[in-house]
């Protein structure tokens, strides 16, 4: 575990901050204090490393896709976060935060979830550490990610269906915040992405940095140097910041964050917050978001529930303005094609979220941003078992 840069006054440039009800200000301070204290504590680090190694299955492999590289015309590596226990990178963060919660004396953890991967990862640590876990999930997501709902329940978590607003991730976060406001004294809000008020974007980033740190040494071993490009999908932005963070100072490494283009920007059915959004405050942070002309938050769409969110982490907003990371979009259709490609050429079933990142590699080759000698690492943030129903339906629609 490594503590990254501390955002002064909770801000990354102008982004971030703490826009929350007064009730929560004390809890955020308490969390920040606990993190700064235990983050440097040797015993905490050892315990975290122990669980990451023996329970989560870290380090995850960096896999060279021989057949797909041939087909695409580049050297493609996958950082296999889909092999983390639970099937996604989310567990890196939930183990860390659960250990913090325990040290803060909180016996109850709550979480929001979109795709269900963070909900599942929270349910897992609830069982692992004997904490009561309650998960908020939008009605629409409960319907399209049933497998994960069932898994969470098997691990003893309570799943609350959220029927307000757009009935997806945004509304699940609203409900989780309302719960936290009410039960702040005994409850830790285990936020699953680099969003929300300070210190969450910092804490979640630091717990996900392990992705980039491992990638760095693995690619050095495999290729004898740094990669030419890193590609990751961006919903809230936790797997991408985890992969990018330790390469930010390496100017020769191009960084690409891929947002969900849904049915296209002109359709307004998308989740392209950084690509097509504007600045504002949502869920406690100042960042880019999708809003209408009155500052009301817009509903979003993506075939990938984990990307279906109208906000994005404040550090990404900062990296966008700095020009250090290029943020672009991939449509539902392109993501589906990439999904099928990885299944057929490499025998790997990626999450629809991660399929967005993969699809973008094909685009980069097409526009000659990367060539046949270039080394590209894609963060395969999760596995796609959870998505088979959506995919079956989508492929059926495509073929009829």
């Amino acid at each position: 575990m490594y503590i990254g840069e501390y955002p002064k006054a909770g801000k990354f440039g102008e982004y971030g901050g703490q826009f929350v009800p007064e009730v929560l200000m004390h809890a955020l301070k308490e969390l920040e204090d606990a993190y700064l204290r235990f983050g440097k504590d040797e015993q905490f680090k050892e315990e975290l490393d122990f669980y990451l190694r023996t329970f989560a299955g870290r380090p995850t492999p960096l896999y060279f896709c021989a057949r797909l590289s041939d087909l695409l015309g580049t050297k493609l590596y996958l950082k296999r976060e889909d092999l983390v226990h639970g099937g996604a990178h989310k567990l890196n963060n939930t183990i860390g935060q659960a250990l913090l919660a325990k040290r803060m004396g909180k016996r109850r953890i709550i979480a929001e979830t979109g795709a269900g991967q963070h909900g599942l990862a929270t349910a897992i640590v609830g069982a692992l550490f004997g904490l009561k876990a309650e998960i908020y999930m939008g009605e629409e997501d409960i319907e399209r990610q049933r497998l994960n709902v069932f898994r969470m329940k098997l691990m003893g978590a309570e799943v609350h269906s959220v029927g307000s607003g757009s009935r997806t991730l945004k509304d699940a976060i609203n409900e989780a915040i309302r719960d936290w406001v009410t039960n702040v004294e005994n409850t830790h809000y285990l936020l699953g992405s680099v969003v929300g008020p300070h210190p969450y974007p910092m804490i979640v980033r630091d717990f996900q940095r392990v992705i980039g740190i491992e990638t760095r040494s693995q690619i050095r071993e495999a290729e004898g140097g740094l990669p030419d490009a890193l590609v990751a999908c961006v919903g809230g932005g936790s797997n991408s910041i985890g992969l990018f963070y330790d390469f930010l100072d390496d100017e020769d490494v191009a960084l690409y964050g891929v947002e969900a283009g849904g049915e296209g920007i002109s359709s307004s059915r998308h989740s392209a917050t950084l690509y097509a959004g504007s600045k504002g405050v949502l869920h406690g942070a100042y960042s880019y978001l999708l809003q209408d002309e009155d500052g009301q938050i817009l509903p979003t769409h993506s075939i990938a529930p984990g990307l279906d969110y109208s906000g994005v982490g404040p550090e990404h907003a900062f990296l966008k303005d700095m020009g250090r990371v290029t943020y672009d979009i991939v449509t539902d259709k392109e993501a589906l094609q990439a999904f099928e490609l990885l299944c057929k050429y490499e025998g790997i079933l990626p999450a629809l979220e991660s399929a967005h990142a993969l699809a973008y590699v094909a685009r980069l080759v097409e526009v000659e941003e990367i060539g046949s000698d270039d080394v590209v690492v894609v963060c395969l943030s999760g596995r796609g078992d959870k998505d088979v129903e959506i995919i079956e339906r989508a492929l059926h629609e495509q073929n009829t």
Partner: protein
Amino acid sequence: MSRIRDTFLELERSGECAFIAYIMAGDPDPSLTPPIVQAIAQYADIIELGIPFSDPIADGKTIQAASERALKAGMTPDKIFELIAAIRKETDIPIVVMSYYNPILHFGIERFMKRLSEGGGDGIIIPDLPIEEADDVVRYAKENGIDTIFLIAPTTPEERIEQICAYSSGFVYLVSLLGVTGARETISGVVRTLIKSVVEKRPDIPPAVGFGVSKPKHVREIVKSGAKGVIVGSAIVELIAEHKDKPEVMISALEEFCAALKAATRDR
């Protein structure tokens, strides 16, 4: 001079506590907001007018539903200023606007305060804006003669209470419980401690108590605890929702309920 401050001074002289009534602007329809305000203003001392927001994280189910109804009915910040101006023609009652931060930020803080002031509004409450982020809001509000009302919660540490009071004008809003807005059966005991702390530190800023207050009985309890104002929201919004299709019935139900709440503020 501040209308809000004058109101509190006047009530102090007559030994009453201020009854602050919250409604959501544009719920169930913008055309009904002026008559609803008029009905309530016969009994209330201050009107709190909510601006609907798509993601009201500090509100319980009742006000969330009101927010959705108002948005569906086409409520926008521009229309709120028109409504306030229309209300202002009929009554002198102080009007405090409660809005989440993003609609204000998007409208432009300076422009928002200017329009609020021109329409005849008196104060602003932003439930998701802590003092750390509030410098621009306080500056532009002050420039336009708008009072800034900040919230103090049961979890707010002692030294922070003083800082929040320093950012506040008109009154301070004491959150009576850990939780979101919504009618409750009982009022928590922490209120008394919060009131005492504010009164000791800043005798010049009246503390008003809200969240969960829904019955004349609660109002009497809060008055006895030494508060200078009591805020009732969800219970009023529930009445509006219940009778949303029968405006006449709604108005008389509101009159009856608000009369009882106001009467309770006189029981010292």
